[in-house]
């Protein structure tokens, strides 16, 4: 049996990053007179349908709605999208950002929600169940561990329109509650 000595090696792993959690915000008033910002993604028709219904109901309930549809992560499209998110955050009172239903799109959903929260605005990020943990992890990594996420069923994309409409109806009150909208 070989008797091996002890040696010193350099640790290959990075030390944990101290996470400073950014503040989160709530609406704390009724919808009337507020401007809502909704971010959809060109990739996910399911979320476009749900967001479309929510936009209608938000307007029914007294808010005005601005929407942004993101199309890219990099290049001119990505740069334009990130600017649109910033602009949306500046002119709206709260944000609804989706959809995280894949790895990278969840990362960017969270990143765009964080961008709105960095403007000191209430915001919720929509992720599907399969990517809920990933969404929370990304929020932590970006220093926004308190970011509110609303978890939708998974899979979502292939569901027929009537099912998506039912999901929209079911989760709309939860979205408002998470945002801190009062009666």
């Amino acid at each position, binding site marked *: 049996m070989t008797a091996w000595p002890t*040696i010193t*090696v350099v640790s290959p792993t990075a030390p944990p990053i101290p996470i400073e959690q950014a503040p989160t915000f709530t609406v704390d008033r009724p919808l009337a007179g507020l401007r809502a910002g909704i971010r959809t993604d*060109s990739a996910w028709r399911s979320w476009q349908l749900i967001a479309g219904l929510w936009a209608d109901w938000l307007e029914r309930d007294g808010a005005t709605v601005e929407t942004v549809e993101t199309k890219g992560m*990099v290049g001119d499209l990505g740069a334009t999208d990130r600017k649109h998110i910033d602009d949306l955050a500046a002119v709206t009172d709260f944000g609804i950002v989706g959809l995280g239903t894949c790895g990278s799109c969840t990362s960017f959903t969270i990143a765009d929600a964080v961008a709105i929260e960095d403007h000191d605005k209430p915001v919720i990020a929509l992720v599907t169940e399969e990517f809920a943990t990933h969404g929370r992890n990304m929020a932590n990594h970006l220093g926004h561990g308190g970011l509110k996420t609303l978890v939708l069923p998974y899979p979502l994309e292939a569901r027929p329109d009537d099912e998506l409409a039912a999901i929209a109806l079911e989760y709309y009150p939860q979205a408002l509650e998470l945002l801190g909208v009062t009666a």
Partner: protein
Amino acid sequence: MTALLAVSADPRAWYERSLEEHFGDGAPLLAPTPEAVDALVDAAPYPADHVVAVLPPRNGVATVELLAANAAMAGAEPAAFGVVVAAIEAMSAPEWNAFGLTTTTSSVAPMLIVNGPRRAELGIDYRAGCMGGAAGRGSMTIGRAVSLALRNIGGQRAGETSRTVFGQPARLGFCIAEWEERSPWPSLAERRGYSASQDVVTVHGGKGTFPMADINNDAARDLLYLIAKTIAFPLNNQYLGGGANGEIVVAINPMWAERFGAEFGDVADLQAFLREHASHPLDLWPEANQEIFRDKGRVADDGRMYLVERPDQIVPIVCGGLGNLHAVALPSFSESQMQSAVALGAG
């Protein structure tokens, strides 16, 4: 100063520890002794505490020393460390989208393509078996060093922070070079604005190696037409986005390159030809897909689905053996743009 660990000198013990503590990639690793790490740091263009990048998803700080520890584990030699550092620099460019690539469900991994006078000296493979089997030290260790850095500094771990469904072999490391002497066109690095005298690494967010074979076609245009149709396969990631981002690398063997070069002396013409034919009629896809593509504005005015928007998104490189008959595509994640950086020596 990076933390030090006391470990058994038994090489198997270090391997077992890497498996238990998940800082390994599953294959045996060398212990990153201070001597090995110092030798790498000494060969770097920056001091040990220089921050090369902040790597997602956990935003780990990649200092030269920490990169050297991972390069030492991979067995990278000091002369090659500048390539590792340059690759990390390239990947940290926002347009490479490390944030997306390290977390995606896709199979994407950094695929390193090296140009410059030191390719052979560094053992970066570009001839037969360059994508696996040639066993050059540079090819096997540089790519692995980068992947270990993503794992141990960036915190990319499949099933945890990375949602990759399948992963791919290149997640163990992928580093090749161009056979520049056999290419009828300027090298990839030269086409990207670098000089032939510079050692340059270009990092492509690639989803794997997609093989193509032919024994039937003598005419260059016929063969290229088929290559174009092949790379435009219906479930290519490129169709999921708008088509403006991302590249697809087409690795051409030297014998085919000679034929293609005779037909297309200007590589831009080759790229334009490939782009034109890397398309299919919309009705190749089922009706439901057709509607989605129309809604997303993805269908061209001629009713076709083009893989990419621009010819420069199809990137030919020349490498591989003299056995002829084959080409390999490196399809892209699409939401990433390849980035290049010069591999510097000791500062």
